[in-house]
């Protein structure tokens, strides 16, 4: 057991830190509101500097390093308060799935522009009638000559309004049991018949979207795996979404804790310093401890991953715990403003930062696996309890 960086890791960290100091733009206060073109440019600079696809094979534009380096990147980027690469869906979901299931041609075609931020990806998994129940999806694809013809509707798709490509789960065989009839397509978001409708969140920002497919023609070969493999391929996607998520989340939480510390040490609009209130002190310490516990839980999962190639089960609770911590933390922050927390626009305290993130945090226990589903998964897959459904 040794938490210190190896000399190589330390060098990587030092180089990265100074690169970030010189290059990272200021992070927009509110996620959905940033300038997307500027973000895309930032993604390109990150890629050019070698900080995107750190763990991906070199032949596809990656750097072939161990996940430890990715963890270091996430920590440092968060400490520098740098914005995220805009291609999160591509990096965390589409990319790893293509690496696992794609043909050589597909890898050549899609991976590099994904890393550089030139092409943005989105995902089409959920449907209005089937939230957490992926296998109940009804969006269909029917083979017509050399093309799949896709019809249906997807929802909760972030970045769809900016995306060039979509990883799409469709039903290609309605006559077999529901898991067996799914396939996994790569769909051009600029194709005729694709319509994106932004869904505004409770923050007011359009972060997720609905996607409508109306006789969209998709080349027959734009499929990952074989027809009928859709469920298995999607599980790879979700595994990777969750597998690489932990460090990103604890890094996010570290950033929020740091902001919280800044906030409570400031003098408030009523002349008091929240940090002088023992109840607030107790709550801040609790979240710092929570953040460290998630950080080191990630390290444990990472160690297992390095040793066995499979992430440790310790990590499965990180998203669950993070989402609730982030909700507590942002609510605490809002509470120090009193009614002032309600004022929006230019008179909003902290330029609306806490307002936005407090509201945004209510989605944390819903998106990327609801807390209810995650608790089921831990109970069934980690603890071996009998299935409740």
């Amino acid at each position: 057991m040794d938490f210190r960086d190896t000399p190589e890791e330390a060098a990587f960290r030092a180089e990265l830190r100074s690169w970030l100091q010189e290059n990272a733009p200021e992070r927009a206060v509110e996620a959905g509101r940033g300038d997307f073109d500027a973000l895309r440019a930032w993604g390109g600079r990150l890629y050019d500097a070698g900080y995107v696809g750190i763990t991906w094979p070199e032949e596809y534009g990656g750097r072939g390093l161990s996940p430890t380096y990715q963890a270091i990147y996430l920590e440092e980027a968060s400490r520098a308060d740098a914005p995220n690469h805009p291609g999160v869906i591509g990096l965390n979901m589409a990319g790893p799935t293509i690496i696992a299931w794609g043909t050589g041609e597909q890898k050549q075609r899609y991976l590099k522009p994904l890393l550089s931020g030139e092409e943005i990806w989105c995902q089409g998994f959920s449907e209005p009638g089937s939230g957490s129940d992926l296998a109940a999806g009804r969006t269909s694809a029917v083979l017509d000559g050399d093309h799949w013809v896709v019809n249906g509707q997807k929802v909760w798709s972030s970045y769809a309004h900016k995306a060039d490509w979509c990883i799409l789960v469709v039903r290609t065989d309605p006559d077999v049991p529901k898991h067996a009839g799914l396939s996994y397509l790569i769909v051009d978001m600029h194709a005729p018949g694709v319509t994106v409708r932004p869904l505004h969140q409770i923050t007011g920002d359009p972060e997720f979207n609905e996607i409508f497919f109306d006789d969209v023609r998709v080349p027959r070969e734009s499929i990952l795996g074989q027809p009928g493999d859709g469920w298995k391929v999607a599980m790879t996607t979700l595994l990777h979404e969750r597998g690489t998520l932990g460090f990103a989340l604890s890094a996010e939480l570290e950033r929020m804790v740091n902001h919280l510390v800044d906030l409570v040490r400031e003098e408030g609009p009523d002349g008091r310093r929240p940090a002088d209130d023992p109840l607030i002190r107790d709550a801040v310490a609790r979240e710092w401890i929570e953040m460290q516990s998630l950080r080191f839980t990630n390290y444990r999962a990472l160690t297992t991953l390095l040793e066995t190639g499979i992430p440790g089960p310790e990590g499965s609770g990180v998203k669950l715990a993070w989402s609730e911590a982030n909700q507590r933390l942002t609510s605490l922050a809002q509470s120090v403003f009193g009614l002032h927390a309600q004022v929006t626009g230019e008179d909003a305290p902290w330029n609306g930062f806490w307002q936005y993130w407090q509201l945004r945090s209510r989605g944390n226990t819903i998106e990327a696996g609801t807390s209810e589903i995650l608790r089921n998964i831990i109970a069934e897959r980690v603890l071996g309890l009998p299935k409740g459904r």
Partner: protein
Amino acid sequence: MDFAFSEEQEQLRGFTREFLADRYDDVRLARLADSETGVDAEVWPKLAEMGWLDAELTFLDQAVLLEETGYRPLAAPYFSTTVLAAPALDDEAAKQVADGRLTATLAWAEPGMRQGLLHPAGTSVSDGRLTGQKVLVPDGAAVDLFVVTAADGLYAVNASDAVVTPHGGLDGTRRLASVRFEGAPARPLATGEAAAALLGRIRDRAYAAVALEAVGVAQRALDLLVAYAKERKQFGKPIGVYQAVSHKASDVYVRLQEARSLAYWAAWCVAEDDPMARQACLAAKAHAGEAAVFACESAIQGHGGIGFTWEHVLHRYYKRAQWLAAFDGPARDQRAEVAAFLLD
């Protein structure tokens, strides 16, 4: 011992609920909240007609109205006028309020000073002219008159004599404003100890009112959650069969009933000027504010993604719940006062 509203009060509740449901269905509420001012300009004369502004209404009668305007938010300065301002008004202004000709609010918080209702104010009056800066004034851009706390008492100032800066607000139908007074003509309403006592009664009343509204908010959130849990299916069953959902709904129900009991106790104490009024109002405000937030958060979670959208009405209630919970400081501030009664 009798813990029920009278038959007349229950009738009033029925009318009120119907009126509000009719006038402020979820679509209309959203439209008003997102409008320029957040105020339904035409509703005020109707309130007067229905007797909501009558001086004879007891606070228990009003409790019914307040709970219902939590259940269906009313886009008008009703809380500000009748709860925050009315108790301080002189007869003439009170009569105008009762006739539906005057709306009002209370302006107390000042920048750089403790902002509780009972904290000292720095605003000063000299030669009948008031000068000072007030912030976080509820419905500040929607009323005709300000009741203003000053260092030596309470004063009435016409809105037309003040510089009002309206703010955007998370809760679109109850926004805040900053108000600057630059030697504005001011009519004294109360001074010295009488003013302090009056302000204390206003705060008790406001806490009870906030608790009652919070109960209405929580009830609506629970109703939405239960309806959705019966209808929405996942994995082939209505989600209400899963204990992760049904037990959360049960917890909301229990908290809501607790909050309601405290809110009614507080309302009765205010109506009867009971010696326990202060503690009852602190308890009700602290508990019900948190209960409403909890109910809304549980309902959003129970709805999944759809409950997180701007289109769904839930976030309107959530923001109102947050407004209420934040009013005059978070629950921990009220608990600190309760503790002082118990422990010092």
